[in-house]
């Protein structure tokens, strides 16, 4: 087989890739923000002694962890306007959907991190008269966050990859822009190759950093 590669095409259309990358970055940013805030709340709720807090958090988390992200996105895309009356743009809807998806995973990371701190630390904090929230903020979370960072980074990397699901909802992120380009240029190999390399270049350093941190902190314990 002699196939002549034409990477020049990709370079000619670089503006399209950059446009797509910006949308991908926006979705990642908002989804991370929603995921972290809601995830912290879910993680804390799931640790609560009150069933009224614990049960909804557990249901949410398990529901989102046991269904495909694409199904979640499509469902949210169609049902959000009906349920809330809010007409979101496609990009916003995908950001919210991935944010909820990420919240389920971040919530579990928070919970596991907090649970990994020994009971003696709670005792010591409470023995000097700290309230629950003081103990959490000053003593438990600062220690737990260290252990949360490596799994958090992993989750963040999958979140970036999940943004490609936005193409199914006509969101002009990287994959969607790439597909459009293929339709006009008929150069799928070049374009998908560059796309894969672009994701790898962004994500591999993140995974590498997470592994380094994990090793460093394991050594220190």
């Amino acid at each position, binding site marked *: 087989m002699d196939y002549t590669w034409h990477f020049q095409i990709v370079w000619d259309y670089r503006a399209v890739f950059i446009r797509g990358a910006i949308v991908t970055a926006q979705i990642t940013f908002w989804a991370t923000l929603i995921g972290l805030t809601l995830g912290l709340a879910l993680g804390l709720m799931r640790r609560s002694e009150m069933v009224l807090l614990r049960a909804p958090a557990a249901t949410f988390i398990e529901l989102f962890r046991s269904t495909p992200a694409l199904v979640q996105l499509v469902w949210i895309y169609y049902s959000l306007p009906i349920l809330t009356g809010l007409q979101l743009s496609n990009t916003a809807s995908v950001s919210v959907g991935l944010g909820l998806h990420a919240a389920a995973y971040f919530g579990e990371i928070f919970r596991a991190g907090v649970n990994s701190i020994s009971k003696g630390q709670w005792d*010591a904090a*409470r023995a000097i008269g700290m309230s629950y929230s003081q103990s959490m903020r000053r003593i438990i979370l600062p220690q737990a966050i260290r252990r949360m960072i490596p799994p958090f980074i992993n989750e963040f990397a999958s979140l970036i990859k999940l943004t490609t699901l936005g193409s199914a909802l006509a969101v002009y992120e990287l994959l969607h822009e790439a597909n459009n380009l293929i339709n006009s240029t008929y150069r799928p190999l070049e374009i998908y190759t560059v796309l894969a390399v672009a994701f790898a270049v962004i994500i591999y350093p993140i995974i590498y950093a997470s592994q380094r941190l994990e090793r460093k902190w394991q050594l220190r314990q």
Partner: protein
Amino acid sequence: MKEIMIKARNVQKSFGTHQVLKGIDLDITKGEVLAIIGPSGSGKSTFLRCMNFLEAYDFGEIWLGDQLVGYRKSASGALVKDKPARIAAVRARMGMVSQNFNLFPHMSVLENVIEGPIVVQRRKREDAVAQARSLLDRVGLSAKVDVYPETLSGGQQQRAAIARALAMNPEVMLFDEPTSALDPELVGEVLDVMRALAADGMTMVVVTHEMAFARDVADRVMMMDDGNRVEIDTPEKIFTNPSHPRTAEFLQRVLR
């Protein structure tokens, strides 16, 4: 008549169906050093943890001065769980030192000691720091003020934990086997600090397996067995002529 610092009446506690405290009565006077001894599993730690309500007792009453610990009397006279803020406030009046030190590993020794005064008592930072430095000096750690706990020996960690508890200016100090996690050669330095504290007139409740310490430093020794207070008396009486066979048997075993 000496002022009563801690008063326990018929204190009971169960974990599930297992009754761990079976109705303990105790008066501790101001400035007194009380040692609690007894076999493993007899409920010593649980009783100590009920005093500052780290463990909620199910029945009976524990008083710190004129403050009921952990509960308040409702209009009908029944006891109901107190508000978290009031429980925290009564806890802050008691210092606690546990077997495993439990220093905060993400804070330097100094930060460990000023944490409670600044965050809980809302004292000025410079006052808290000045007091912390003098306390750390008192427990022989003035050279370790800025290091992190992980770099300290067990004995040093325990002395830092004592300084952290003292920084709250507690009315009572509760110790749960403060030396039992230490290498034998480090036990002495911690007991010396506790001796000095007792000599200064601090009210202390010390759960301990160090019989020499109980004999030399305690004003009274309480023997516990199977969730009961078997006897309570002066060290001379307990160690030379215990009135209960369980005490004699226990002492024979540990003093061998």
